[in-house]
């Protein structure tokens, strides 16, 4: 277990023309469970491979507890990694597969046996230990791969690259909670790559959102949800994602069209901004409850436990999440209210301030 520090680490696959991973400095702290969240092709796997040493970064240094390992090959780094698809030694039994990483490191036979049985018990593989691994279905094979990642007791970190993609949904939940349990017991540093926000938010102590080769924001799940610092994080986390609406700062008031929605904090200079508010916090009120942003309802999705009211403000779509059985009709005009403490202002996609209550101020 170690703190893994990336100092100015960046990687380019085409000799510097484009960055798959933009140079970044970041520390993965020991014994925490991280989720690395981002869309496909954003550099998650590149980042993982740099940590495990399968890839040498174009620039920057990788430090394990202060020791520079940038040039150290994978075998010397003591990292476990699980891939997206099952990677097994097909002609070996499940037992031998699990034992393989330990045997290669000359672990005594008794210890190997103890570890293999422990991991197999945790992952529910006991009944399969004697089976030839290639005769298992893909989901089970992936669990064996996972086991191989977890079998070594002393690793700097366990890297999981979308490990549950091929596992069927019912088992996914079980395995994810198993992983959390294992993390609690062993105190391994876990870095779990995924593009599924639910997976990331339920699994991790800390979620790191990556987009286009750069870290957008890192924080606890609630922080990312309630207080996104970048438009991308707002969009990407939450379903549906954050509403974004063009607005204008005039004096110390934020305006959407003709309507004042709140005051500016932090002395933001005038100019165009975008306001971001999650569907969960948008309140829809009838025509009588002005002031509010005038919106036309375009449709209502009945989701069972809640409704999603789709509206347009001018030509911009805004979704509100309401209680089930909302009485709104398509075509009706309603007024939207954005609670000040849950509404943020973005300029150039980066958060630049938040909304404050109007308190009767502003050019009425």
């Amino acid at each position: 277990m170690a703190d893994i520090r990336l100092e100015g680490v960046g990687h380019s696959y085409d000799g510097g023309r484009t960055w798959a991973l933009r140079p970044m400095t970041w520390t993965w702290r020991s014994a925490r469970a991280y989720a690395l969240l981002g869309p496909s092709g954003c550099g998650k796997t590149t980042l993982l491979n740099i940590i495990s040493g399968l890839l040498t970064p174009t620039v920057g240094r990788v430090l394990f507890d202060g020791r520079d390992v940038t040039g150290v090959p994978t075998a010397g780094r003591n990292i476990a990694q699980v891939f997206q698809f099952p990677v097994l030694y097909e002609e070996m039994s499940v037992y031998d597969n699990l034992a393989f990483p330990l045997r290669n490191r000359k672990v005594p036979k008794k210890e190997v046996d103890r570890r293999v049985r422990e991991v197999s018990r945790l992952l529910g593989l006991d009944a399969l230990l004697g089976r030839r691994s290639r005769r298992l279905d893909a989901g089970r094979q992936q669990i064996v791969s996972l086991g191989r990642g977890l079998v070594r007791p002393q690793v700097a970190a366990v890297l999981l690259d979308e490990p549950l993609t091929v596992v069927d949904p019912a088992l996914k939940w079980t395995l994810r909670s198993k992983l959390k349990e294992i993390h609690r017991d062993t105190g391994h540093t876990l870095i779990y790559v995924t593009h599924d926000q639910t997976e990331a938010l339920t699994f991790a102590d800390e979620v790191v959102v990556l987009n286009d080769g750069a870290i957008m924001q890192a924080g606890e799940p609630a922080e990312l949800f309630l207080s996104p610092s970048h438009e991308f994080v707002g969009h990407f986390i939450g379903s549906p994602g954050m509403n974004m609406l063009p607005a204008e700062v005039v004096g110390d008031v934020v305006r959407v069209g003709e309507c004042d929605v709140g005051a500016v904090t932090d002395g933001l200079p005038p100019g165009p901004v975008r306001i971001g508010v999650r569907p969960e916090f948008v309140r829809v009120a009838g025509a009588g409850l002005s002031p509010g942003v005038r919106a036309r309802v375009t449709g209502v999705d009945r989701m069972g436990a809640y409704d999603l009211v789709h509206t347009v403000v001018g030509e911009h779509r805004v979704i509100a999440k309401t209680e089930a059985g909302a009485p709104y009709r398509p075509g009706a005009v309603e007024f939207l209210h954005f609670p000040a403490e849950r509404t943020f202002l973005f300029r150039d996609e980066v958060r630049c301030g938040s909304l404050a209550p109007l308190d009767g101020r502003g050019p009425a």
Partner: protein
Amino acid sequence: MRLARAARRKGPGVSEESAPRAGGEVAVAEAPAEDERRPVLKRKDNRAWWLVLPVVVSVAFTAVIPLMTVVNFSVQDVFGPNDRVFVGLEWFRSVARDPEVRAALVRTLLFSAQVLLLEIPLGVALAVCMPRRGVQVSVALVLVALPLLIPWNVVGTIWQIFARGDIGLGGWTINNVLGVNFNYTLDSTDAWITVLVMDVWHWTPLVALLAYAGLRSIPEPYFQAAQIDGASAWSTFRHIQLPRLRGVLTIAILLRFMDSFMIYTEPFVVTGGGPGNATSFLSILLSKIAVGQFDLGPAGAFSLLYFLIVQILCYVFFTVLTRSGR
């Protein structure tokens, strides 16, 4: 790989897909009542059988009829164009008992075994050593494939000269630099070695290319996983590369077995089957009987037995190789 896998699931022989349901028979005659929207295209039309005709004709002309001619000869004693007697299985019996044929069979089996034992490991080793990316790949591929482009009789001629003690570079070097007395025209062992080395030189590249293709098809994460698991180069080879070469190696073994078991041109050019009978393999003996002595009856019986042995051994190889992986 997939081919071998499919066969493994269903057992050897004819798989379900290739079972003779050709032409219009494949289609469902009447669409089930619950699925009315099924396209009308799937109607039974026996005219489709005509599409098979060209294949039937060409196969009959090039394979079936000649084979039947051989069968016809094998049960007759032919004295002249219009003078023949039916003799039943007599030729089969006499060929099977013939000590010369038996000696040639043992010789050919031994040769094939040595060819496989040398060429398969060598080819795999070569493939493992070949570069995986860059310009070197094309260079290595061309260099390795070179011997495969040379016609059989030219290979024979090259080695016939190369191995000569007086004017051949190889033979001269062995005799005069290494100081070993080497003469393939007089010494049976030397002749055997010459033919064997020639075959290894000519055909190891085929095994290497097949194995290389197999190695290239292994996804990168397998090698990455091996690195992460701390596997040595040997155990990476043993546990990742070799198991995944099973498919291509099955094909390589079958090809090299059949080919070496029927080897003819090269030893014919180099040694002519000699000295004595040292390198007279089944094919050389067969052509001596069929073309040299024009004994069509015994030659026919010999051919059929030869054919049968090749079939049986290929079947055994295939079964063993594909079953062992279960």
